[in-house]
């Protein structure tokens, strides 16, 4: 295997998710290369050596400053072709998923996504891909090289195993269409909003609440349980609740003792942020909601009926 791992960077740091994939790749095969593409990334590229990269390629160019996929596809396509890489690995994120798919199209390559494991069987790479709300696990493969793989977010932890890696700088040549999209406002860390990561109990709400005002129901239950309130992307995107409280792939990862999901369908991107919770209680009126696949207690019913009663009963118990 001649593998290349795409490393995402943000504000002078290499993203944990992509370092996790790098560590995994290095555990499968010692000779793994990594690539980082951004502006001012030459200085941080060498750090990838600590997580298993034998070599790191750095495409460092102001045109790569914004976290947009298309210029990165140009960089990777050239590197994969020139370097003869047979495997390219990505850790899922908004940026990396778009880079991976663009690269697959550019190279006419196979991309397997949402993988929760990578294995070498008799020297052949196999991906493990959950399907149908994770109710079945498929072994997926590639008929041809290069093999592209996108790993589900939060799957592999970065493991420190080596020292600094040798960094090789890449010349950056971009397609005209790749630079047409531009970033006019950069994401910044949200300072306002409550912190949910430390809470022992989380009561989370989704679009099933029906309207923003109904978060009050969850706040009362959370208060009774001594916990915090969290939300799905659907309601955060809609402006119902602050981004700081969002759980999932593009929000927080939490692992409280108790997670009560109210009116949440349970999409994979939500699941990856809360699957480490001790006990998961889900209240959903749709008996087929995906969240019931991984809830410890699945309540089929109307949250508007159940949540206020729950609050009352918990208050009675806890005095």
């Amino acid at each position, binding site marked *: 295997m001649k593998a290349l791992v795409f490393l995402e960077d*943000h504000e002078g740091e290499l*993203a944990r998710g992509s370092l996790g994939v790098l560590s995994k790749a290095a555990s499968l095969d010692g000779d793994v290369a990594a690539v980082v593409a951004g502006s001012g990334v030459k200085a941080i590229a060498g750090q990838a050596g600590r997580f298993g990269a034998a070599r790191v390629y750095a495409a460092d160019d102001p045109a790569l400053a914004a*976290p*947009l*996929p*298309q210029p990165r*596809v140009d960089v990777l396509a050239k590197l994969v072709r020139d370097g003869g890489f047979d495997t390219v690995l990505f850790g899922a*994120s*908004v940026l990396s*998923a*778009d880079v991976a*798919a*663009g690269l697959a*199209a550019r190279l*006419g*390559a*196979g*991309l397997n*996504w949402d993988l929760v494991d990578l294995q070498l069987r008799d020297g052949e790479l196999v991906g493990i891909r959950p399907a*149908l709300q994770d*109710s*079945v*696990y*498929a*072994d*997926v*493969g*590639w*008929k*041809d090289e290069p093999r592209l793989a*996108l790993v589900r977010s939060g799957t592999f932890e970065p493991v420190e195993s080596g020292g600094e890696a040798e960094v090789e700088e890449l010349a950056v040549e971009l397609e005209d269409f790749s630079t*047409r*999209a*531009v970033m*006019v406002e*950069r994401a910044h860390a949200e300072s306002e909003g409550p912190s949910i990561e430390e809470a022992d*109990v989380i009561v989370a709400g989704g679009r099933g609440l029906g309207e923003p005002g109904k978060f009050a129901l969850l706040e009362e239950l959370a208060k009774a349980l001594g916990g915090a309130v969290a939300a799905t*992307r*659907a*309601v955060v*995107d809609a402006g119902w609740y602050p*981004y700081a409280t969002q759980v999932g792939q*593009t929000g927080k990862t939490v692992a409280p003792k108790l997670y009560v999901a109210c009116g949440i369908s349970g*999409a*994979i991107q939500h699941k990856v942020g809360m699957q480490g919770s001790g*006990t998961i*209680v889900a*209240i959903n009126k749709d008996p*087929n909601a995906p969240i019931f696949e991984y809830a*410890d*207690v699945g*309540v089929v*019913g109307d949250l508007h*009926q*159940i949540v206020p*009663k*729950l609050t*009352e*009963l918990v208050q009675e*118990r806890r005095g």
Partner: protein
Amino acid sequence: MKLAVLVKEVPDASARTRIDPGSLRLDRSGPAALNPFDAHALEEALRIRERTGDGEVVAIMMAPARGAESLRKALAIGADRAVHVTDDALAGSDLVATARALAKAVEREEPDLVLLGQQGGDSDGAVLWSALADLLRLPVVSQASSLELAGGKATVKRQTEYGYDVIEAPLPAVVAVSDAINEPRYPSLKGIMGAKKKPFDTVDAAGLGLAAGEVGEAGSRTDVRALADPPSRGDSVRIEDDGSAAEKVVEYLAQRKLL
């Protein structure tokens, strides 16, 4: 303004779907529906058409013959025209093979804006737009939670792992929208009746100028080798609410000392 909306057919959420153990493909024989995530892309296109007062919305779907029913639903909701890309030779297409077929179908339309949903309800892929845009050589923005068109540009607000940012792309462009961008409308009775009279174009692989080796299983570079049960997650409890669900939940939590 010409708007192309890519819509997918997925197994109906209420149906118990499975993977066919023989072909290792999704068994699509059960009831099907228009991908709920794509209703948001269609809604956005209809609102743009309504706002600008002119424009055409073309719904494009690649699916087996039976997909026509779901595609008609897009017409009933409000699309002006439908293009059904269908051919046995397309069966088993992976990401890139699917993108190739859809790119050809989009190219024929020369749209100003190509809209997609946030993910296939069946595949959780959330990747097609970027492959498509690369083949079309157009700018792409995904996860749009708001979309504005002005001065020949699309301005998109989107959420990433680091918060919200704003991206601008000149038209023509490819934009994939999040499921929070709008509240999709339902088809009206008038819409359902009117849909029967709207142009409905069916095209096969050869009609799009696709060679046999580019699409379908032959054009795909990934495959599924085997299926297994997921790791067991222990016992779970199911409660159908008959008015006593809250008591049962509290009982459960108390037993596990979670109160």
